[in-house]
């Protein structure tokens, strides 16, 4: 599955068309489903023995940037009306110099405050954490842990529902401290195998949001983070050794964007009536399975 080589000896591309397609689908879906995209981009290539697909390959890193941009654009397009209203409300509130009781403005500031912890921790800790845990065995263990966290979140949520003192509230009724809590939970996704949307959804549920609102807040909170992270990593597109093929990059970005758009549309319908437990089972089974395979030397 290695890259083709031109007659002159210069690698044409070190990622094949099939790999681009699979990676794009994987990124678009797993970034938004609470199953950890980072964990899957480590485990799936290891399962398929793709020796050319790893984070020290500049071409692979360049593709990851394009795929993230596609995912972020899909989220922006899906929530375009909401983002437009939030942006206008935020600008108006800064010009006015005070907070109002408007729903969009309140959600906007909650998102700003919630993005601060993941922004700081992401910039400071992303590289050391990936260097430390960016291999199949830890990613598989964290994926299993991600499943347990979702089960624990659902159990705590059911306990909350039994408490007559507590009731579900809309996103705009969250406090800024709760938004920081959700943002902090999201930053656990720096660990390969821990899902960004899963961690922030569980935190949202613990802050008395229902599943639909927790998912929406999680996706809104993830959008600036994914977009900013991919913009900051655009340097990999022109890095020495990044033999990126434009057609492949565009195709990969488009596939990731379509997959992400369909995923968020599906999940917003799914969480109207369902919970996180099926994803918890998936993460637990796949995580434990991959860990056993890695210990038997079956993951490259």
């Amino acid at each position: 599955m290695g890259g083709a080589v031109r007659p002159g000896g210069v690698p044409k591309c070190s990622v094949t068309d099939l790999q681009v397609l699979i990676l794009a689908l994987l990124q678009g879906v797993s970034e938004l489903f609470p199953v950890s995209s980072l964990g899957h981009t480590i485990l799936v290539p290891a399962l398929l023995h793709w020796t050319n697909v790893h984070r020290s390959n500049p071409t692979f890193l360049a593709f990851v940037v394009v795929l993230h941009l596609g995912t972020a654009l899909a989220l922006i397009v899906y929530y375009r009306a909401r983002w437009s209203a939030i942006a206008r409300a935020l600008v108006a509130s800064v010009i006015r110099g005070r907070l109002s009781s408007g729903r969009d403005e309140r959600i906007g500031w909650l998102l700003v405050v919630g993005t601060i912890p993941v922004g700081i921790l992401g910039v400071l800790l992303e590289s050391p954490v990936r260097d430390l845990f960016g291999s199949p065995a830890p990613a598989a263990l964290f994926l299993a842990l991600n499943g347990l966290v979702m089960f624990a979140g659902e159990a705590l949520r059911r306990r909350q529902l039994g408490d007559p003192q507590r009731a579900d509230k809309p996103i705009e009724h969250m406090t800024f401290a709760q938004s920081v809590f959700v943002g902090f939970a999201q930053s656990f996704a720096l660990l390969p195998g821990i899902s960004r949307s899963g961690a922030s959804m569980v935190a949202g549920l613990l802050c008395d949001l229902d599943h639909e609102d927790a998912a929406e807040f999680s996706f809104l909170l993830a959008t600036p983070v994914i977009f900013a992270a991919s913009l900051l990593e655009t340097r990999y597109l022109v890095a020495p050794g990044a033999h990126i093929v434009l057609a492949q990059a565009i195709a990969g970005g488009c596939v990731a964007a379509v997959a992400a758009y369909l995923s968020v549309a599906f999940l917003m319908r799914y969480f109207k009536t369902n919970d996180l437990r099926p994803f918890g089972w998936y993460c637990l089974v796949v995580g434990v399975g991959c860990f056993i395979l890695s210990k038997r030397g079956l993951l490259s």
Partner: protein
Amino acid sequence: MKLLALLLALVFFVLGVFYGLGKINFLTKSGTAHTHHISHLVLCWILALLCLIWYRFQSSADTVRR
């Protein structure tokens, strides 16, 4: 609080400049190597901007109180 907001904005701005110039390398991937830390610069300047917005809200609140 107004003073704190302004002071923090200044600190983050200067910190960003130093990271951008590669003068400080605290908590960076390159460790002791003096390179331009663009991510850290952007983060510091965003935090500085948020502190300025905080300052703006505080100033406006003072005006309303008067």
